[in-house]
């Protein structure tokens, strides 16, 4: 007989303590697709809190803002170096698609960490929280944060108009 079979497996992470009306990570993925990395990242960060994994909350916010800045820097560098011509609609679309793809990839990576806990919440019959108002708040916050990051990066990379 497999010896591992009768040895303990569960740890404190397998308990449902701290889980409180989590949001469905798959829906956050769609929000990220439509409203960008910062919106999705903020929601995912707060979802860590709702899943009882508060230690990842700040880290996720930092990583999200950091990666959003990197993407912004790359975008402006591509524009500054004339690799992408923003006046060309095809190239502009490609740039936007690229940004979206990257955002999705990052969101996927973060969600991987949430899936197990979210499944546990479902198994423990913990109801999902509503995403309407948090999503609207996150979109508004993302507009400001994104605007600020893009503005600063633009000044640094391209310079003042």
């Amino acid at each position, binding site marked *: *007989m*497999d010896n*591992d*079979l*009768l*040895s*303990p*497996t*569960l*740890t*404190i992470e*397998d*308990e*449902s303590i701290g889980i409180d009306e989590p949001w469905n990570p798959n829906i956050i*993925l769609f929000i990220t*697709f439509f409203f960008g990395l910062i919106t999705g990242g903020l929601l995912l960060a707060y979802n860590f809190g709702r899943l009882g994994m508060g230690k990842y909350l700040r880290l996720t916010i930092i990583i999200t803002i950091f990666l959003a800045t990197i993407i912004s820097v790359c975008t402006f560098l591509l524009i500054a170096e004339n690799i992408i011509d923003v006046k060309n609609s095809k190239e502009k679309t*490609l740039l936007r*698609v690229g940004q979206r*793809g990257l955002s*999705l990839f990052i969101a*996927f990576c973060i969600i991987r960490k949430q899936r*197990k806990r979210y*499944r*546990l919440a479902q*198994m*423990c019959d913990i109801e999902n929280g509503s995403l309407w108002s948090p999503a609207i708040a996150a979109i508004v916050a993302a507009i400001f944060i994104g605007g600020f990051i893009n503005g600063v990066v633009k000044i640094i990379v391209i310079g003042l108009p």
Partner: protein
Amino acid sequence: MEENCDLDQNFQKIEDCLSIGQYDVAKKLIHEMLSLLPDSPKLYCYLTRLFLAKNNLVEAKEACETALRLDPEYVDAKLYLGNIYMYDHQHCKAEEIYLAILHLYPEEPYLYLMYSHLMYKTGHLEKAQKLLERCLQINPEYDDAHAALASVLAERKNFFSSLQHGKKGVELSPTGDISHYSLGISFYSMGRPFKARHHLREALRLDPNDSGTEKAFLQADFATRWLSLPVYYFSWICDKIPGEQFTLWAIFVAAFYVLPMLGVHEKVVIITALAYLGIALYSWVSYPLTKLWIKLRPPK
């Protein structure tokens, strides 16, 4: 001797009342018996069972702990306590108890089944599978274990084995709601929604008050409406791809840019784009339309 016989008969009576759902009669009998035998852990175990049936975990735990105070080695009470901990989402404590009993009775299939339920619940699917395989090694005819293994395998995307175990479960217990439910789930995850609907409907007929089965049946019924059938198959395929529908989107976007570079005619590119948009639009529209259809013609 007669007293012994009466006692046994009374225990049997309680057992019967509990099994047919006559909880009030059972409660009365247990209290009557407790006035005669206040130190009987068995009676407290019956009380635990009664409270568990009524979803009263607090009182069930209290009764169970009393049984264990009276006889700390009473295995039934330990097992009930393990179950209570599991239902109360105190998984580590439940595991501790299950393991302690399993070390005492390593050949008891029911214990493996319960422990595997705990593993399944907490997402340790591989261990759940191993436990159920061990359980079936001990008792290959254990219908509930086959049904549970079918569900575990379906979630692990091992569809063929899942179906095999689901079918075996139904074969061993043709009137068991759990076996039909598991087979239904196996069929659903295999991409056979009509078969899934049939078995989930049967499971629901056998136990109409199981909310989980009802949810699964409604999902299968939704999938079998011709309006949402293409969407079901579309998402079934997406489920198999890492990144799911977003990968498909990425492929489409890539194709949109790559195809013209490869010299493919513009019309083909536009048709590809329209096809993708059509699928996306259909997925969005079919959902509320099917919902409306269900409202007008509820499932039977």
